[in-house]
């Protein structure tokens, strides 16, 4: 009985350690997140093959798919690919080219986004292209509209058939933190309409908003940059993020800012295993 307080203290410590360990094991990992995410679409669209989700809304909208397939016979993004090839080959003022920055290019889209340990941030392809330009004494390109889409189109075309493979390295906890921030962004309700990204694209894909069918989140990153009939031109993924935020009446964030890069990291990770098929064409 003498040692009772000591024993009770020891028991409390053991119980606290066990509870912490259990809580840690219940914390969903990215792998678990992805499994649950994919299951959601399997349950909602049991007849759609997993690989089909790379085709976005046309995986689940047979009527829209007919017009999309007709559009793809004469793709509206072809000219942008040609211009992008010229950009890729053209020397900068110092005589170097993009190839000097991306030795394994131009088919490099599947390597992005990735965790850049040195810079401690998510590196996206548009950001890497601009870092290349600046290192060669060139002005950076704009991140939503304009000629960045040309070179992105060319790179996307050259990367067709590669598989999405975003890695969250375990040796740098900042990478997991960036992933978690992207995930938090995706499930956070915002704007006057109080919608999260997931409210449309995970909870309600296949439902209609006016005449448009909501696309499934799975596979949403495979086809960028995208030619949208609504835009009448081609645009980047971050331009699309901006548009989505505006649609729910939230103030959008800066293209290639930390918020959208983390969001891209999370969202692309969710599509791991799907084939890249950009540039794409959408309504």
């Amino acid at each position: 009985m003498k040692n009772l307080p000591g024993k009770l203290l020891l028991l409390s410590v053991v119980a606290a350690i066990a509870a912490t360990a259990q809580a840690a094991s219940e914390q969903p990992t990215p792998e678990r997140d992805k499994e649950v995410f994919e299951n959601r679409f399997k349950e909602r669209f049991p007849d759609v093959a997993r690989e089909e989700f790379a085709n976005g809304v046309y995986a689940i909208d047979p009527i829209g798919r007919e017009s999309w397939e007709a559009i793809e016979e004469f793709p509206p993004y072809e000219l942008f690919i040609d211009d992008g090839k010229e950009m890729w080959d053209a020397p900068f003022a110092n005589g170097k080219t993009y190839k000097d920055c991306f030795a394994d290019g131009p088919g490099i889209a599947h390597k992005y986004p990735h965790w850049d340990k040195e810079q401690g941030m998510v590196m996206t392809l548009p950001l890497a292209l601009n870092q290349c330009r600046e290192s060669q004494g060139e002005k950076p390109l704009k991140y939503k509209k304009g000629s960045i889409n040309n070179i992105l189109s060319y790179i996307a075309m050259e990367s067709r058939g590669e598989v999405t493979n975003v890695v969250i390295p375990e040796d740098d906890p900042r990478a997991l933190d960036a992933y978690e921030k992207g995930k938090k962004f995706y499930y956070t309700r915002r704007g006057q309409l109080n919608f999260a990204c997931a409210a449309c694209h995970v909870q309600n894909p296949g439902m209609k908003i006016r005449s448009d069918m909501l696309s499934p989140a799975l596979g949403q990153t495979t086809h960028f940059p995208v030619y949208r009939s609504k835009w009448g031109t081609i645009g980047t993924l971050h331009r699309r993020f901006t548009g989505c935020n505006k649609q729910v009446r939230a103030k959008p964030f800066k293209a290639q800012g930390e918020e959208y890069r983390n969001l891209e990291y999370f969202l692309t990770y969710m599509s791991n295993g799907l084939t890249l098929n950009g540039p794409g064409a959408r309504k």
Partner: protein
Amino acid sequence: MNMKKMTAMLCLGAIVAIAGQSVFAAEKQAAPKAEAADKAAAKSPESSGDNAAAEAAIAAAESARKKAASVDGEWRDTGKMIKKAQAALKAGDSAKAIKLAKKAEKQGKLGYEQAQAQQTLKMPSYLKY
């Protein structure tokens, strides 16, 4: 018409013309006076009170917008409403400025509350962990 009648009519015409001129001159003089009166009214305690109220409402709206932005909760149109309120105040329409600013302030407050309510990530129930 005899000479007397003609002289009388000419005199009457002259009187009417002189009277008309003096009325016109009086009106001309009165116009700047009316403008001055309007300006004075604009500077009256009641009007400057409205302006001050509009300025205060705009400042409150801007403060609410910044607070919402500090937690990434700013809504799309809040900043635009504040700009419109500022423009309305500049144009002298303080009532419109106050109305817009109050609406913007409410948006700022709601955006902040929304972001605060979403601070902790809660996975939706339709995802089966």
